[in-house]
C-alpha cells in the first residue's frame, strides 16, 4: 500500500523546538503535517551529541537527531538578529502552528512572543513545551528530563529500596510531553474551526509526568500512600510481588497480580511447568477459581515465587516468550533492540522501514506509530540535513525545501 497524505496534510508547522520538543514535531509530521524545522545557523545542539552513526562525529550523523526529526523539512534562521526575526514572522504569518521549547518569556524578549504572533496571524497556534509551564512560582526554574521526573512522583517510586530513586535512561518526559503537546495542537486546531482564532498552548513536562503513575498521585488523598521503591517488585494487596524475573539468559516480566484476567495465564503456566515436571503437588493443588491476589499472604507469594522462579531459571527469554504467545501466559521478555529488530511479529506487520539518508546511506527505523488503511501515519522523509537547511535560509525568505520529494522510505514488508 502506498503512503497517503495523512490526516494533517496541509497543516503548516514551524518547529523551533530543541530536544524536549523533537517528538511533538515528529508525530505531527508522521500524521502528514508540513513540519519545517527551524534551527540556529550553527545547527541544533542535539547535532553535536553522540552516539553518531558509524562513530563519525558529524552534525549530519547524530542518531538522536536522525531518530526524532523525521518527517520534517529544515531551514536555519538567526532569531537573535533583526533580519532573522522578520523572516520568522513572515513565515509565521502563513503557518498554522509554531512549536517551541524556549524558557518562558524568551521568545517575547526577542519580539516573537504570543502577543506579536497573534497580532500578525490571528489563526496561528503557538505551542510551548517547558519544564514547568509558562507561569507560576517555578516557571523560571531550569529543568530537564531528570528534574521534571523528580517533581512528578514517578522518580521516587522507581528503583531499588537501598539506592536512590532512578529514571529511565532515555528521556520519557519528552515523549509524554511531546504527545501531550501534539494533542494540545490538535485540540486548538479543532477549536479554531469554531472561533477562527489560534491559541497559546502551554504544556508542562512536570505535569505531563504525573499521569504516567496511572492515578497513584490522586489516590494519595484516599490511601495515604506516598510511593516506595521495591525494585523488580510491585506492591499488590498486602504483599510485595515480583515483576521482573531472572531466567537463563536474561529477564522476563511476569506477575501474580491482575485480577481475574490474570488467572487463565497462571493456570496455563502451571500446566506448562507440569509438562516439564516442574510443578509441585502444592502448586497443582491450588484452587484457581477462588484465587484473589489481594488475599494472598506474603508466605503464599513467596511460595509461588520460588516455584515460578525455579522454572524460569531453566528457560531462555525466547523459549518463554514463544510459549507465552502460544499458551497465553501473560509473560514477556525484557527486550533490547536486538530482540525487537528480530521480532517475527513486528516483521509480519512491516513495522520497520529503511530510510534513505542522502549522502550517508540507508538506516532501519521503527516506522509508523499506528497502522491505518493507506498508511496515513508514516515517516515521510529523513531528518533534515544542516547543509540543506543552511542553503535554503540563504536564498530567500520563503525558501524551504520543496514540500514534495520522492519517497524517502521503503517498508521492509508490505503494511496493510
Amino acid at each position, binding site marked *: 500500500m502506498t503512503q497517503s497524505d495523512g490526516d494533517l496534510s496541509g497543516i503548516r508547522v514551524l518547529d523551533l523546538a530543541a530536544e524536549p520538543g523533537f517528538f511533538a514535531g515528529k508525530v505531527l509530521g508522521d500524521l502528514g503535517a508540513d513540519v519545517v524545522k527551524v534551527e540556529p545557523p550553527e545547527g541544533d545542539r542535539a547535532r553535536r551529541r553522540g552516539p553518531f552513526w558509524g562513530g563519525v562525529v558529524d552534525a549530519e550523523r547524530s542518531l538522536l537527531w536522525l531518530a526524532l526529526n523525521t518527517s520534517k523539512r529544515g531551514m536555519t534562521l538567526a532569531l537573535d538578529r533583526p533580519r532573522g526575526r522578520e523572516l520568522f514572522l513572515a513565515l509565521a504569518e502563513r503557518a498554522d502552528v509554531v512549536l517551541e521549547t524556549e524558557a518562558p518569556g524568551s521568545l517575547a524578549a526577542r519580539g516573537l512572543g504570543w502577543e506579536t504572533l497573534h497580532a500578525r496571524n490571528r489563526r496561528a497556534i503557538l505551542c510551548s513545551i517547558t519544564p514547568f509551564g509558562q507561569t507560576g512560582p517555578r516557571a523560571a526554574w531550569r529543568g530537564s528530563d531528570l528534574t521534571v521526573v523528580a517533581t512528578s512522583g514517578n522518580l521516587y517510586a522507581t528503583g531499588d529500596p537501598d539506592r536512590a530513586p532512578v529514571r529511565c535512561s532515555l528521556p520519557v518526559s519528552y515523549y509524554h510531553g511531546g*504527545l501531550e503537546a501534539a494533542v494540545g495542537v490538535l485540540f486548538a486546531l479543532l477549536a479554531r474551526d469554531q472561533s477562527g482564532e489560534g491559541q497559546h498552548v502551554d504544556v508542562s513536562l512536570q505535569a505531563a509526568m504525573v499521569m504516567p503513575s496511572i492515578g497513584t498521585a490522586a489516590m494519595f488523598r484516599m490511601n495515604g500512600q506516598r510511593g516506595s521503591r521495591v525494585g523488580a517488585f510491585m506492591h499488590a494487596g498486602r504483599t510485595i510481588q515480583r*515483576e521482573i524475573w531472572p531466567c537463563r539468559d536474561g529477564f522476563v516480566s511476569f506477575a501474580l497480580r491482575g485480577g481475574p484476567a490474570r488467572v487463565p495465564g497462571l493456570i496455563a503456566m502451571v500446566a506448562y511447568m507440569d509438562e516439564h515436571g516442574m510443578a509441585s503437588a502444592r502448586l497443582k493443588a491450588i484452587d484457581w477459581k477462588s484465587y484473589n491476589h489481594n488475599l494472598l499472604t506474603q508466605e503464599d507469594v513467596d511460595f509461588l515465587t520460588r516455584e515460578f522462579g525455579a522454572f524460569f531459571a531453566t528457560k531462555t527469554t525466547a523459549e518463554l516468550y514463544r510459549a507465552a504467545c502460544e499458551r497465553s501466559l501473560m509473560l514477556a521478555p525484557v527486550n533490547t533492540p536486538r530482540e525487537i529488530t528480530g521480532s517475527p511479529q513486528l516483521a509480519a506487520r512491516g513495522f520497520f522501514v529503511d530510510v534513505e539518508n542522502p549522502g550517508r546511506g540507508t538506516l532501519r*527505523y521503527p516506522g509508523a506509530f499506528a497502522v491505518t488503511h493507506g498508511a496515513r501515519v508514516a515517516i515521510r522523509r529523513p531528518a533534515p540535513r544542516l547543509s540543506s537547511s543552511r542553503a535554503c535560509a540563504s536564498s530567500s525568505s520563503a525558501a524551504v525545501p520543496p514540500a514534495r520529494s520522492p519517497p524517502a522510505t521503503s517498508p521492509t514488508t508490505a503494511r496493510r
Partner: protein
Amino acid sequence: MIRVESRRRPDFLRILRLTPTTPGGVDGSAHFAVLNPNKLSIALDLSRPEGVALARRLAIAADAVAENFAPGAMARWGLDYESLVRERPDLVMISTCLNGQTGPDRAYPGFGGQGSALAGFNHLTGWPDREPVGPFGTITDSLSPRFAALLLAAALVHRRRTGAGQHIDLAQVEAGIVCLSESLLTYTANGEILTRMGNRSRHAVPHGVFRCADEDGRDRWAAIAVHDDEDWRRLAGALGHPAWTLEPVLATVDGRRRHEDEIETRLTEWTATRTAADVAAHLQAAGLDAAPVEDFGDLHDDPQLAHRRHFRTVEHDVLGTHPVETHAIRFSAMEPRIERPAPRLGADTDVVLRELLGIEAAELDRLRAAGVLE
C-alpha cells in the same frame, strides 16, 4: 464520553483490588475513580443479541469508537470496524492492544507490565549492576492513551475536512518502540545496545539524585543535572568553591566523567546536611537545573502544580470528596473541565439510551426485565 460496561465482567480496575469487604463493591474502586471522571457508564449484557444491538446503535450514533479488547472480540459481536462502517460510512474507530490487530502474535494477552518489557523501557531503567526495573506505572499504559487521543483528534480533523472516517490499529508495543527510536537507531546504525545507567547521562556530569537530610523520618533526595562546563563553574560557585571543585581535570565533561564516583560522593556530602527544598532553591538561584524529588504526597503541596490547578476535586457517591488529575495542557482560551466523578457501574444506562437512542421508559423496563440492561 460513554463507557460501555458489563456487570458480569466488570472493568479490570473496578475489581483489581476488590475483596469481599470493599465498601461499594465495584463502585468503590479508588483506582477506577481517579482515572474515569467525566464519563457516563452504561451496563449491557453483550452475551444477548439485544445487548449487542444496543451497543451497535450507540457506536453508529457516536463521533468515535475506542476499544482495547483482544483482536477478534469485537468481530465476534459484529461490532468490528468492517461491520459498523456499513451503517456509518464515516466511522472513526481505534482498536488498541499490545501487539496490534494483525501478525502471528496478535492474540498475545498482556498488561502494561508486559508492554513496557517488550518495547524496551525496562531494559533502560535501573542500575547497570542490577536487574532492570520498570519505570513506575507500566509506561505503555500511560503512553498509549496519549497516542490514542492524538490519533482520534487527527482523524476528527481529517473527517471535518474531507468527510472520510478511518480505522486505526494502535499496537501499544510499537508505539512505545517509536518513542525509543534513539535506542533502536543506535542498534541498527552501530550495533550498540544502550543500557540502563542509573541516573547518569551520556552527555552531562554530574547528573544524579543525591540524598538530602531526612524529614519526618522519610528519605529525601534532590536531582541535579550539570549540563555543560559552564554549569560546572556555576555549581562550584554555588558550593562556595571548595578545593575539590578547583581540580583542573574537572573543568571538562570528559574529566568529570573519569571522576564521576568521586564527584557524586562529594556532592552527597554537601546535600546530606541540607533539606531537598534548600538544595534545589539554592542551586536554581545559581542558575542550575536542580529539583527536589517529590513523592506522591508532596505533589499535593507542589506550588507549581497548585498554580496550574493540576488536581481538581470531585464528589463521589461511595468514596466521598477526592482529587482527580487534569491533563498537562493549558490553553489561552479554553479551560480543562472536570464536570463529574467517575460513574457507578451502569449509572447512566437509562439517560444515555433515552437521550442518544430515543428509547422510551416502557422499553427500558422491558430490556431491564429481560436482563439486557445490567
